[in-house]
Structure formats: C-alpha cells, structure tokens
C-alpha cells in the first residue's frame, strides 16, 4: 500500500506541469517551464530589417545572437517597467528571446486535467487555465512566429 501510494504520488507529480507565469503589458501568460531556457535582464535589442511578422530584432548575449519574438507587439501591448526581463525559450528552430514585464515570473504547478481550450486567437496556445477571473493562456512555444 505504502509503495503503491508512493508510486501514485510519483505518477501525479510526473503528470503535473511546471508552468512559468509571467506578464507582458500587465497581461498574465504562462509557458511550460520545460520550454524555458533562461531568464535574464533585458538588454537593448538590435533591429533587423525584414518581413517576418514580430521577428524584427536580435539580442546579443556574449558570442550568442538570439532572434527576438516581439510578443508584446503581437498582443498590441507595451512591455511594462523600466527594467524588463528577457525570457529565453526553446523554439524548434533555435533558442528565441522575448521581452517581458519586469515583474518576476513565478513557477506554478499545474494539473493538466484543468487545462481548457484557449478561446482567444491572439496567440498560439496549448490551452489555458483559470486563475480567479482571469484566463491565463499557456503559450505554445513551438508555434510562436508561425501562426500568430
């Protein structure tokens, strides 16, 4: 029984998702922690003239240059705070950076059983969950830049 209980706990833990909850323009969004490669201070981005929607800059971090997905612009929002953060995500085409509000992101353990379909069309989402009155979309990182 005890062993079975441990196994059950482990399975429950395995099934839950670790989400990183952050905000852009004051709007709460979430992303799977597994899709996140790092958070750091945002440094000035370097504009790149082009035609790809919302991918119009890069950030340089040492010898690494990362493309920037302008999540705020795609949501018609403006990043809040004087010290915004850089959220780096694991995109299938390579690591990508996004500028997010200065508010420190928080980890949130999420039971996928509570996953809802995201009704919005403004961003690619794996679904959403309800937090009070808010619907928090869970970003689909792999579809960022391709379906918005």
């Amino acid at each position, binding site marked *: 029984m005890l062993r079975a209980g441990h196994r059950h706990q482990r399975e429950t833990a395995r099934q839950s998702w670790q989400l990183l909850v952050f905000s852009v323009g004051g709007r709460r969004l979430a992303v799977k922690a597994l899709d996140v490669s790092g958070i750091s201070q945002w440094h000035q981005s370097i504009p790149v003239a082009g035609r790809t929607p919302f991918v119009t800059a890069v950030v340089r971090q040492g010898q690494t240059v990362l493309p920037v997905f302008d999540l705020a612009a795609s949501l018609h929002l403006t990043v809040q705070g004087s010290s915004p953060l850089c959220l780096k995500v694991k995109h299938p*085409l390579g690591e990508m950076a996004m500028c997010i509000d200065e508010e420190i992101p928080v980890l949130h353990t999420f039971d996928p059983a509570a996953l809802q379909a995201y009704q919005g069309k403004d961003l690619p989402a794996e679904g959403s969950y309800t937090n009070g009155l808010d619907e928090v979309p869970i970003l689909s990182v792999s579809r960022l830049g391709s379906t918005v």
Partner: protein
Amino acid sequence: MRLVTENGQEGLGLGVREAMTVTSSPAAPSRFLIVTLGGRYLALDAESIQGVLTLKEAGYVENPTIHGMVYRAIDLANRLSVSNDRGGTDTRVVLLSEREARGNVRVTTVHGLLELQQSQVLPLPMQFRGLERHWYRGMILFGNSIALVLNTNWVLDEQVSGLDGSGGQENTPRLVAAPKISVNDSRVC
C-alpha cells in the same frame, strides 16, 4: 579578426580599384566593409566593392561614372526600410559591382574593413523566414553589436536589367571632371 580602420596604418585604400582577379581558397579569410546606415551596422563583401568615395569625390551626382562605368544609385535605406540619414559629413558612396551589375549605395559612416574567417559569419536565425533571408548572408559580431552581412546580389538585383552597356547612361548626369580619387592597384586594404 582584424579591423582595419579608415585611418589606420593598414591604409584602407578606399579609392577606386582596378579590375583584378582574385582567387580565394576555402580557408582564405573574408573581408567585409563595415558601414552604418540608419543607425544599423551593415557589412558589405569587400570582393564586391570597387571603391569608397566622399560625396565630393563622387561629384555630387546620384549616378557617378567612374572609369567609364556608371554606378547607379541604390536607395538601400528605402529597400531596408530604415531611416535615411544621408548627406552628413561622414557620408560615403560605396561603389559595388558583381558580375555585370554595378551600383552605388550611400552610407552614413564607414567604419573600416573587417577580416575574418567565413566560419565567423553567423547564419541568420531560422526564425527570420521572410524575404530578409535573401537580403542577408549572415551576421558578424561587431563591437557590442552585430553587423548584418548584405547579399550583394540582392543589393544590385534591380541594377541587372538596366545594365546593358550604355543603355541608361544618356539620362545619367556625368561628371564634369573626373573625381579626385585614389586608385589602388590590387588591394582594398
């Protein structure tokens, strides 16, 4: 990586160069002219550069004729949708040539030549999936920033159809006098 500054000892020799034959091996370093346009660093393949002139040396004309060749103006700022800050004291006219196409681009500042291995040219991230993939050949780490390596073929693309000998030269203002330019025998730097 070696930056040869405009006033450096290496002597940039950014006049107009004579026709030359260049044989490059895969291991040979590549040279890029680093310029600023609209506040952005751009890199131009030195192999395609025929010269760098001041506005005065270019004769204050849009389409200078150098050694009998017309270098038509290319509005690079417009094509890249960046601010056009031409006309400053540091403005330079970069003469470009590749195959049968020739053109000139006006840049805000010329920073100098950068010599580096081809492996040091970083690919444009795949997330850039629009037309810009044809505009750039990659990126170079430059200072605390990056310089985007322009695809000279794209830069000169609009020039190809119009360059069939003397075709468009009749309406092109020609220099009253040959510009005072320094001619470099074989090397850009």
